[in-house]
């Protein structure tokens, strides 16, 4: 179920003195099963772009086609689009509202008009997927959980719609390192289980470098770069010019290379760098 974006342009409040172009002529295709990292500086249009993917906002110009459904066409059922593309907003825990965790997760499936048995089944599956214990948490109020747990409940609320594409807008923002790691692991597992395309918005290079199969880099509402993490992180200068860094391992590799050490120029994970340095050290030790 690919997503095709063709010459997408979006202007906020067109025709008024406050009009602002948020996206400019974006063309992209997202294939099934990809795990995409969407990178960009604050205000680069990442959030505007992902809100197009399930029809929350409509293109000013251009097209967004989700599994054959054009979101700006009149007859398109947006509910159908939203069932296919699940969107988890930034700080999703602020959108919880029900008395119990189970009811909150059931909100989406209920809107789809499913039977109570189906809904219950979906709630259980979704909670299991995000690593929450049904017996322990389902009947508690979402407001008495910890920040990390609340975020999982909110993500489960979207997963319960059983989308084909899961979009997460900065899923690790505001979490402590442990919470961060566990959310990232969860995303990895969701994707590894198969059948799910994941698009993750982030501006943390380290979060995304080990996770994504492809990166999309945005700058000032335009598509700046797209490719595998290895291809993208090679362009250190270009990334720096749009205000983004490279993962710490890539940065260290770069500085070592500057200092005259003969390391390959496409390292970006710490494991790779570790073995490369060991290899180099072994060679030099042999020479001495």
């Amino acid at each position, binding site marked *: 179920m690919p997503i095709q974006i063709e010459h997408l342009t979006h202007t906020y409040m067109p025709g008024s003195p406050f009009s602002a172009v948020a996206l400019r002529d974006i063309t992209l295709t997202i294939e099934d099963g990809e795990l995409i990292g969407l990178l960009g500086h604050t205000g680069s249009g990442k959030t505007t772009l992902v809100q197009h993917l399930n029809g929350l906002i409509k293109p000013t110009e251009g097209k967004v086609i989700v599994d054959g459904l054009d979101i700006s066409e009149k007859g398109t059922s947006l509910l159908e689009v939203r069932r296919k593309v699940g969107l988890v*907003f930034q700080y999703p825990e602020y959108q919880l509202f029900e008395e119990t965790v189970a009811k909150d997760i059931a909100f989406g499936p209920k809107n789809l008009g499913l039977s109570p048995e189906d809904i219950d089944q979906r709630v259980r599956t979704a909670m299991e997927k995000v690593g929450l214990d049904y017996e322990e948490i389902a009947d508690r109020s979402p407001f008495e959980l910890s920040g990390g747990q609340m975020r999982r409940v909110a993500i489960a609320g979207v997963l319960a719609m059983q989308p084909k594409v899961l979009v997460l807008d900065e899923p690790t923002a505001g979490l402590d390192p442990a919470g961060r790691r566990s959310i990232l692991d969860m995303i990895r597992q969701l994707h590894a289980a198969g059948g799910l395309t994941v698009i993750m918005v982030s501006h943390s290079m380290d979060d995304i470098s080990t996770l994504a199969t492809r990166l999309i880099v945005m700058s000032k509402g335009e598509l700046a770069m797209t490719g595998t993490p290895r291809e993208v992180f090679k362009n250190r200068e270009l990334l720096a010019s749009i205000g983004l860094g490279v993962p710490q391992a890539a940065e260290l590799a770069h500085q070592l290379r500057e200092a005259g050490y003969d390391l390959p120029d496409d390292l970006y994970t710490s494991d790779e760098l570790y073995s490369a340095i060991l290899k180099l050290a072994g060679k030099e030790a042999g020479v001495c």
Partner: protein
Amino acid sequence: MLRDITLGQYMPGNTVIHRLDPRTKILLTIVYIAMIFCVSSPVWYVIPLIFVAVCAKLSGITFKQLIKTIKPLRFLLLITFLLNLFFSAGATVLFQWGFIKITKEGLLTAVHFSMRLIFLVAGTSILTLTTSPIALCDGIEVLLKPLSKIGFPSHELAMMMTIALRFIPTLIEEADKIMKAQMARGADFESGNLFKRAKAMVPLLVPLFVSAFRRAGDLAMAMEARCYHGGEGRTRLRVLKFGMIDLYAALITVAALVLTILCGKWFP
């Protein structure tokens, strides 16, 4: 969708009326209201009419904008007019059809009360059209200060109003975001009957209240961290000062009031 709402009526500008001290404008608005109530017969609405027209001209407010401020009142105006028209006692019958009768006195009263409403709203709108909400709050705070002697919390009231105004755009943005998030989960805010729609608001209102309370807590903490301790001994960034234009404005307005009273006395 919610983003397109404009807040208040304030039209920024730098005209004489804009430059008047907010306290002057508030007090003179009260004088103006008194003037409206001193008008004795519909003919003498010509004085407030000239007054409002001059103020509007000076402040660059168009006739269209003034009409727009009256528009929300149209049903109230209609009801006022009809009630007075049909239910006023009077001797001179102009028109009769069954039990419905219109008298000359009734017609006069109907016009009188409708004019009163129109001028009340149009005139006071000039205050809100030319004074920023913050300046208004400042003005109200200073004007209410004497009441603090008898325990009236004038500073607290003004601070609450300022904070409320400051957070309206923030809350609108937040509401927009929560609405989108619930729509992403298939929520439908736009269709169904009234009861259904009210029920659909719950997923929006609960998170909005939760976040408003959280923000209030954060703000209180931030204010305390910067040593806020109420109005006592607090100096201000914008110090209000009366100038010559305030004096002229006051003289003109009071003159208009006196003229209205005298006209009512001499030519009732």
